[in-house]
């Protein structure tokens, strides 16, 4: 068994090179914000974000930090705090390549990669302007029903999947609970890096209840333990979003200067006060 546990969050993200096609989960599914801060501190560049199927603070900060070349997503949203302001600004300036999608299309394209398929079909979409701007999506005649069009989506196979979860064990198994899209992300990606709240000694596979919600170590390359690693985004079954910080970001990030000032504080503090041990 290889050594899974990384010394710290910087060591975890060391393997995310410039130009990586990076899969990240939605706000509700376990966002690796401490890892994102580490990536921004390191000055990563030219990321191709695959948001599964949307993103929020994570994508917006990476865009604002100039780390992003393209974004494939169904939305960039800070939920009740609105659309990601740095995303809006980057769109206006034309400084990122947009691959606007719809949620089930991203799920389906990752499932194609998970199954080693060149493509997956999907209902709907026809007549949406999304299709006009996605030259990689094709419409064919359904071979099982003459004259009936259907969309085919090419597989999305990210280089790295990066997310945050509540729990892992020393063998490298990660508890993902009901968040099955994390399994799809991990299996579709060449490599998977995970930050977790806690690493336990007992194997998650020893108890069938834990096992049912576990991403096996087979798909995991590295794990780092970071308390409150999703902050200020929330973590399912663990803690809610920090609305105060998100609201402050949404206000500040409307301007270049406001964003820069916010990020200086954010990258220095790194973690929420209450998470300090």
């Amino acid at each position, binding site marked *: 068994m290889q050594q899974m546990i990384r010394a710290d969050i910087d060591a975890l993200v060391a393997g995310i090179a410039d130009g990586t096609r990076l899969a990240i989960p*939605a706000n*509700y*599914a376990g966002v690796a914000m401490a890892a994102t801060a580490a990536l921004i501190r390191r000055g990563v560049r030219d990321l191709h974000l695959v948001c*599964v*199927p*949307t993103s929020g603070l994570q994508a917006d900060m990476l865009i604002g930090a100039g780390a992003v070349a393209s974004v494939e*997503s*169904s*939305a*960039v*949203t800070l*939920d*009740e705090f*609105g*659309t*990601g302001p740095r*995303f*809006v600004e980057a*769109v*206006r*300036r*034309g400084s990122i*390549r*947009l691959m*606007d*999608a*719809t*949620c*089930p*299309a991203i*799920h389906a394209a990752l*499932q194609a990669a998970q199954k080693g398929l060149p493509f997956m079909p*999907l*209902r*709907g*979409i*026809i*007549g*949406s*302007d*999304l299709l006009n*701007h996605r030259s990689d999506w094709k419409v064919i005649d359904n071979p099982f029903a003459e*004259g*009936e*069009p*259907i969309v085919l989506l090419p597989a999305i196979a990210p280089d790295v999947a990066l997310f945050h979860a509540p729990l892992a064990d020393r063998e490298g198994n990660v508890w993902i609970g*009901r*968040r*099955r*899209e*994390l*399994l*799809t992300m991990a299996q579709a990606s060449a490599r998977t890096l995970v930050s977790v709240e806690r690493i336990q000694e007992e194997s998650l596979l020893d108890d069938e209840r834990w096992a049912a919600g576990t991403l096996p170590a087979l798909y995991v390359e590295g794990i780092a333990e970071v308390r409150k690693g999703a902050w200020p985004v929330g973590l399912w079954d663990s803690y809610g979003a920090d609305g105060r910080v998100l609201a402050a970001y949404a206000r500040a990030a409307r301007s270049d200067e406001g964003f820069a000032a916010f990020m200086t504080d954010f990258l220095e503090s790194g973690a929420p006060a209450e998470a300090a041990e």
Partner: protein
Amino acid sequence: MTPCNERELLISVIAGLLDGCRHVAVGASSPVPGSAALLARHRTHGRLRVSILRSLRNNFFTNGGVELFDCAAQGRIDAFFLSGGQIDGAGNINLVGTGGYPQSEVRWSGSFGSAYLYFLVPRVILFREEHTRRVLVDKVDFISAPGTSPPNVPRRGGPYALVTNLALFEFDRARGRFALRSIHPGHGLEEVLDNTGFAFDRPEQVPPTPVPDEATLALLRGPIREEIAETYPEFAARAFAA
């Protein structure tokens, strides 16, 4: 009892659109539709199933983010809610932005699942409180999801009604147009016409939207307020009259 406020009216209107449904799903950031679905559930004595995404107590999904979409594709979701930065008279919705694409002048979050669910959920209820010519336009700048499709495109879902802070419209799929069904108390036809950017059908006499009865108001201000507070505590604190 304190008279019904605007939010309570909207909740009651939407609940009325869910009659006969077996399963209603409610997306993120949707406290009014969520409250309406819970009200409809109360009226069926719990037979109506309500899935509120992000809720713990009212979320029965265990298969990750894809389950909502699979469930809709299986025909197991009868009603869902969508909104739009723009909504046009043909039922097209725009969640992407205005002023060009990809370099939009005004950019919104994105299309989410609209380009899929609009095809697969029989009753999609469009809900947007702001009723202005900025929102309700003749033709959207970007079609996130089209209101209707040619007959060869498999589609069982689509727009069913549009609810705003002024009025209730129903969507006629055969004609591909909205029909004004009722105007909320305190508002008039001129106001609706002035503030709607698209043409729509209407009866000679447009009735007022019925206000919720006392029993409904008691439900809203009691159990519904409590249930929706799990997902939307701030909304529950201020949306309902005392």
